[in-house]
């Protein structure tokens, strides 16, 4: 014997006969049904913020932040599937490696496949670029998702993609900071 569920949250909605059953090896009783429902409703009000390891990579060879530099990824999960990510990349005072090719950063959870059809095109966030050596090239980038490689990329206002040589070759003490938000697949 089974029970029917609601459309969106899959809440159990037993009929009158089902609702008064005790828990049996083959049937969840009221306590079980209620707990399942309350957990699903509760998940709509999710609020968990924490850190994750932000991977900063290059399409050809990887960059490195050098001595005194760091990468930082933080995120919150709201509702069942909304993820909001805040990230920073700070280059150190020495020993940095610019790598080569387009730059990418990682996200904490998989993207909903609906983004596949919009690869590279839809901005999902905004970032600031601080060029320590020139105020004129400090800038703001859009943050975009590239579904074909499952990575997050950025686009400077000059066009093209954020890369080891674009819009400038990164140097010591340069910094990026930004945020993006997207739906995950798993609730």
């Amino acid at each position, binding site marked *: 014997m089974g029970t029917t569920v609601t459309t969106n949250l899959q809440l159990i909605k037993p009929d009158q006969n089902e609702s008064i059953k005790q828990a049996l090896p083959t049937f969840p009783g009221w*306590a079980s049904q209620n707990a399942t429902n309350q957990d699903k*409703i*509760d998940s709509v009000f999710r609020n968990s913020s924490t850190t994750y390891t932000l991977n900063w990579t290059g399409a050809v060879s990887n960059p490195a932040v050098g001595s005194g530099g760091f990468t930082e990824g933080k995120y919150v999960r709201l509702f069942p599937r909304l993820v*909001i990510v805040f990230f920073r990349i700070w280059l150190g005072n020495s020993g940095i490696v610019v790598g080569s090719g387009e730059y990418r950063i990682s996200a904490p959870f998989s993207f909903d496949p609906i983004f596949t059809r919009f690869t590279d095109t839809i901005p999902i966030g905004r970032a600031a670029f601080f060029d320590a050596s020139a105020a004129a090239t400090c800038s703001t980038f859009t943050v975009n998702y590239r579904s074909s490689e499952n990575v997050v990329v950025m686009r400077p206002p000059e066009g093209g993609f954020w890369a080891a040589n674009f819009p400038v070759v990164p140097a010591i003490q340069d910094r990026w*900071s930004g945020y993006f938000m997207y739906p995950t697949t798993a609730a």
Partner: protein
Amino acid sequence: MSICKDCDIKMPVTYTPNIGLAKPSESELAQDWVNTQKWAEDNNLIVAAKSNFPLKSYTPTMIASVTNPSYGSGGIYGEYLEFQGWIFGSFSMYFLDPGVSAGSGTGGYGIRLPTLADISFHNAVTFVDGIAAASVIGEGYFSDLSSVTTSGVTALELMRINGIDYVRQVPEPYTGKTTQWVGPGVPVAAAHGDGLSGSFVYKKG
């Protein structure tokens, strides 16, 4: 006898982690089955209360490092809502004569946020010309009525100055750019018809 989680009397009932909905186990139910309806009613009240996100208004006051700007007879508006400890909001302001003043000082304009941010989660600079880059928590736009080339999109960077939280705008490159932020005289002195706007999201402090 109350069975409300927020009340003083604690009943031996299991609750959900985020908003405290009652989900008694079989044994808990067996001990207190008479309160089944009350649990359901309390759960409904909690869900109803937590589902209400009223849009509130606030004044996104602008500051500069020496003399604050004046929007003259223009307007300044802000609104936000809070969901589970996170703030989603926006601001807009436009400058209209008489009375427009761009203010003065180095660094960017500070545009006040509706609440303090959680700076154990975010990172904030402490001066309007403090070195970048703090947490970017939104995006905005600067509109120069007299020139397309000095209008453009911006990133919003978090600042905490004298115990109050603001954002400053980081613009795109433009011809003649000499500082990193939108501020007094940068990219142009705010004048009649110019405007600033933006939207943001951050963890409430």
